[in-house]
C-alpha cells in the first residue's frame, strides 16, 4: 500500500494555506465555498484516485497498444491523409512559449504567436488565391458551415446548395449549423440546379469520390444567379491544382490538420478559411494585421530606434466579445498551434517542394491504381482526373474486401457503396499519398491478388 498522492501541480503547502487563511480571517478552505447551496456541497463523485506519473504513462501505453490503426498498412483517406511532416515541425510547435500562451491579447509579449499567424494568413492566401484569411477555424467542415453563414449574411438569402459528391461529414456539419441559423440546405447533383434562392454553392475541388473538378464553371454558374462560390480545397493538392481564387471562388476552405502534425484520430483539426477582400468584415474568427510601434524605443546609448513593425489582432468589431449577439460568429478559442505547424510544413516545403510533393502523391497513387487495375477481376473506376483517392471495384463486396484485407493485416479503403452516385456502386475509396510506404502498397497488391485465389472469381 502507498499513501494518497498529493496534487503535484499545486505549489501551496499546508503552511501556505494556513498563512493565507489567517490573513483572510477564514477558518478553512471549505469555508470559502459557504455561499454554495449546502445540500449539494461536496457530493460523492466516482472518479478514480490519483496515480503516479509513471503509472499514468503505463496506463496509456497499454491503452494505446489496443489501437491497431496506425501501426498497420491503411488505405483510408476520406478526409484524413497521411503526410510526410518534417521533423522541425514537431520541434518548433513544441516550444513552450507557443504551447502555453493564449490568444494574443497583449501584442507586446505575443509577437511570436501574432507574427506566425500573419505568416499563416499569408501562406493560406498564396495557396488559395484569396485576398484575406483568418487565423484558422475548427476544421474544414465547420469552416464550410461558417462560409455558408457568411454567404447568407452577404446575400440576404436563406438557402445554400451543396454540390455532391461532398464529404458526408462536411454535409452533416453544414446542416447542423444551418439548422441553427434557419437556413435551408439543398444537396444538388449538378451545378445547373443552383438558383437565385441560394446564397452559395459549396463544391469540393477534389470531390468526395476523389475526382478533380473544374471550379470555373461552378463559380460562373453561382455568379450568374448572384450567389457565392465556396470551394473546398486540399492544401497539398494546391501545389499542383489551380488556385480556387483564380477559378472564381469567393471563399475557400480546407483542412490543415494533416500538415500540422498534431491530429490524433482526426482531431484536433484546422479549418482553413480565406475569402475575397470584399468579405473581410463578414469573416468569422480572429484576424491578425500588421502595424508599427506608436513611439520609438531607445537603444542602450539612449538613441532612438526607428519605429519597428509588429502584429496585432484586428477588425475585432466583428467578434463575440465586443459585438455579442450581433457578432459574425461565436468563435473564440481556435486552432492556433495547428496553424503554426501547418505554416511551418508548407514553408519548409517551399514552392518547389510543395509542387514535388503534390506530384509525388499523384504519381504514387496512380501507380498503385494501375497495379490494382491490372489484377484480374479488379476495376479502377474511370471518372475523370483524380489526385490521391480512387474507386476500386473488387470481385467481392466492399465489406467482404475489408474483411479479407483485415485478415492480411491491412486496413481497406472507405466503403462508399451505399452512396447513390453511379461511380460509387460496389466501390471502395482507396487512398495512397506521398507518405504511404511503398511496402504497404506491395502488401496491398499481394493481398488483393489473393482475393481472386480465395474466391475463385474470374475476370
Amino acid at each position, binding site marked *: 500500500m502507498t499513501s494518497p498522492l498529493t496534487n503535484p501541480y499545486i505549489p501551496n503547502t499546508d503552511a501556505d494555506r494556513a498563512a493565507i487563511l489567517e490573513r483572510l480571517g477564514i477558518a478553512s478552505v471549505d469555508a470559502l465555498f459557504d455561499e454554495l447551496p449546502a445540500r449539494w456541497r461536496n457530493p460523492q463523485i466516482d*472518479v478514480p484516485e*490519483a496515480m503516479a506519473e509513471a503509472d499514468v504513462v503505463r496506463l*496509456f501505453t497499454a491503452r494505446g497498444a489496443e489501437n491497431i490503426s496506425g501501426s498497420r498498412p491503411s488505405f483510408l483517406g476520406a478526409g484524413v491523409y497521411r503526410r510526410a511532416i518534417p521533423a522541425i515541425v514537431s520541434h518548433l510547435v513544441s516550444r513552450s*512559449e507557443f504551447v502555453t500562451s*493564449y490568444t494574443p491579447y497583449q501584442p507586446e509579449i505575443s509577437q*511570436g504567436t501574432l507574427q506566425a499567424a500573419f505568416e499563416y494568413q499569408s501562406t493560406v492566401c498564396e495557396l488559395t488565391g484569396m485576398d484575406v484569411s483568418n487565423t484558422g477555424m475548427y476544421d474544414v467542415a465547420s469552416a464550410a458551415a461558417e462560409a455558408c453563414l457568411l454567404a447568407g449574411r452577404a446575400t440576404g438569402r436563406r438557402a445554400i446548395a451543396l454540390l455532391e459528391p461532398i464529404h458526408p461529414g462536411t454535409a452533416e456539419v453544414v446542416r447542423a449549423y444551418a439548422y441553427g441559423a434557419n437556413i435551408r440546405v439543398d444537396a444538388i447533383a449538378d451545378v445547373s440546379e443552383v438558383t437565385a434562392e441560394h446564397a452559395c454553392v459549396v463544391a469540393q475541388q477534389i470531390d468526395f469520390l476523389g475526382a478533380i473538378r473544374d471550379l470555373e464553371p461552378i463559380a460562373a454558374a453561382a455568379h450568374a444567379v448572384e450567389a457565392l462560390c465556396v470551394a473546398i480545397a486540399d492544401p497539398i493538392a494546391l501545389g499542383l491544382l489551380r488556385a480556387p481564387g483564380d477559378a472564381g471562388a469567393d471563399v475557400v476552405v480546407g483542412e490543415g490538420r494533416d500538415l500540422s502534425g498534431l491530429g490524433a484520430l482526426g482531431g484536433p483539426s484546422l479549418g482553413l478559411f480565406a475569402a475575397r477582400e470584399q468579405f473581410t468584415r463578414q469573416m468569422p474568427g*480572429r484576424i491578425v494585421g500588421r502595424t508599427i510601434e506608436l513611439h520609438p524605443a531607445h537603444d542602450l546609448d539612449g538613441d532612438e530606434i526607428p519605429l519597428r513593425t509588429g502584429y496585432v489582432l484586428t477588425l475585432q468589431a466583428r467578434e463575440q466579445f465586443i459585438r455579442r449577439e450581433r457578432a459574425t460568429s461565436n468563435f473564440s*478559442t481556435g486552432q492556433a498551434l495547428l496553424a503554426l505547424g501547418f505554416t511551418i510544413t508548407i514553408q519548409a516545403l517551399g514552392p518547389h517542394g510543395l509542387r514535388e510533393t503534390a506530384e509525388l502523391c499523384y504519381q504514387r497513387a496512380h*501507380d498503385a491504381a494501375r497495379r490494382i487495375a491490372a489484377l484480374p477481376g479488379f476495376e479502377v473506376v474511370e471518372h475523370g482526373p483524380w489526385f490521391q483517392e480512387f474507386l476500386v471495384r473488387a470481385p467481392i463486396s466492399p465489406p467482404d474486401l475489408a474483411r479479407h484485407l483485415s485478415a492480411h493485416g491491412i486496413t481497406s479503403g472507405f466503403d462508399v457503396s451505399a452512396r447513390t452516385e453511379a461511380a460509387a456502386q460496389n466501390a471502395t475509396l482507396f487512398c495512397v499519398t506521398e507518405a504511404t510506404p511503398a511496402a504497404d502498397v506491395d502488401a496491398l497488391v499481394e493481398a488483393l491478388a489473393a482475393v481472386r485465389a480465395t474466391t475463385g472469381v474470374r475476370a
Partner: protein
Amino acid sequence: MSVAGQNADIGSTLAFDRGAPGRRAVAVPRWEGETAALPPANLLREGVRLPEMSQGEIVRYYTALSTRNFGVDSGPYLLGSCTMKYNPKVDDLIATMPSFAMAHPLAPDEEIQGTLGVLYDLQRCLAEITGLPAVSLAPAAGAQGELAGVLMIKKALEARGDLAQRRRILVPDSAHGTNPATAAMAGFEVTEIPSGPDGDVDFAALEAALGDDVAAFMITLPNTLGLWERDIERIIEKVHAAGALAYGDGANLNAIVGRMRHGDLGFDVVHLNLHKTFSTPHGGGGPGAGPVCATPALAPYLPAPIVTRDEDGTYAFARAEDSVGRLQQFAGSVGVLLRAYAYIRTVGIDGLVQTSGNAVLNANYLRNLMHDYYDLPYDRPVMHEVVFAGTRQKREDNVRTYDIAKGLIDRGFHPPTVYFPLIVEEALMIEPTETESREAVEAFAAAMIDIAQTAKSDPDSLHNAPRTSPIGRLDETAAARRPVLRWQPKA
C-alpha cells in the same frame, strides 16, 4: 532592414522575404516509376509563391518568434476567465504517442479500441463531475460546445412542439460574449438580463422577462465577475416553471470542480472547456475542447459521435437517436481529450477538489492584498477570479487600465484580462489559478501596488510602458483603419 540583437525589427521581414531562390528546407524524393499524365492544363497552376529557406534558417526564424512570446512556462499569466494554469508535460507526451496520434478516425472500431476506451472513460468522468449523465466529447471548443447545447435545446423544444413560440434566450449581462453570440447563431433572439448591485442576476428582472416565449436561460456559473450566483437554485426553479431550459456555461468549472455539480443544481445542459479546468495547453489560441453534458431527457440530441461500451467490453462510436448532428467531420479534439483524461487520472478526485480549493483561495488572497489600492465594484468574497477596476487611477492619476496592464509587463507578469466584463468600467479581471504559489500571488499584488503608487509619482512611466518587451506599444487604430492582412511582394 532588420538590425541584429534585442532591438531587431524582426517583424519587418517575413519568411517570404527571407532565404534565397533555390534554397530548400526538405528534400522530396523524385518519382522514378512509370509516369501518369497530369490532369489537363486548365486544372493546374503555374506555381505558388512561398518562402525558399534552408532548414536552419526556418528553425532560427521560428525559434526567434517563440522567444517573443510569453507563456505560462515563462511566468505568471493571470488572464482572467482563461485559466492559464500550468500544463503538465506528461499529458503532451501521452497525446503524442504514435499509437494514439496515428489512428485513423474512419478505421473500424475494432482497430481503435484503445482510443475509444479512453474517450468512454472520459465521458464517464465528466458525467460524474457535472452530475449530468449524457456526455458528448465532440465539440471542438467552448463556443462550439455552447452551440451544441443550444441546438440540443432547440431540438427538444421542436420535439415537444414548442419551438415556434419560444423564440427568446435570456442571457445575463455578466455572461461571456460567446453566450449571446451562440444564442443568435442557433436562431434565437437574445434578451439581456441586468445584474443587481451585488453582482447577482437581478431576480425581479429575470422573473419579468420569463414567459412562454422563452426557450432557455444561459448563465455562466460562477459568473464573469468571479462571483457565485447566490439565487441559482431559485432561478433555475423559475426558469423550469416557465417551461424553459437552463443552460450552464461551465467555462468556470475550475472554481467548483469536485465540490458542486451543475446537474445537482438543476441545469439541463452544460459545456466544459477542457483547456481550462483540465489543464490542457492553450496553444496560443487553441486547440481546445468543449464537451457537452446533459440530462437524460436531452440525451437523444447529443452531437455525434458518442462512444458506447457493449456488454462484452468493446467500445464503439455511436450516434444519439435524434442527434443535432456532427459539428466537425470526425470525433472532436481527440488529442486534447487524451490530455484531459491523463490529467484527471494523475490528480484523481482528491486532486480535483484541491484545484478548486486552491484556485479560490489564491483569488481571495489576491483580492485581500490588493483591496486598498484599487476599486472593487463588487466587494464580496470571490470564487476563482476577482474583477478590480482601474477607475480610481483613471480619475485621480489619468492612468487607465490599459496603462496598468502595460506596466505589469515591465514587472514580469502577463496582464490580466482588461475591459472585460463589459459591465465593469476599466475592468481588470484577474485569475491566479491554483498552480501559482503564495509568493507568486504576493509578488503580483506587490507589482499592482507598485503600479498604483507609480500612477501617482510617475504616471508617464506607465503611459510609456512597456519598455522591457521585445516591441513597444503598437498602433492598433492604424491596423484596423488600413488593414494589412497578408504578405505582398515588395514593389
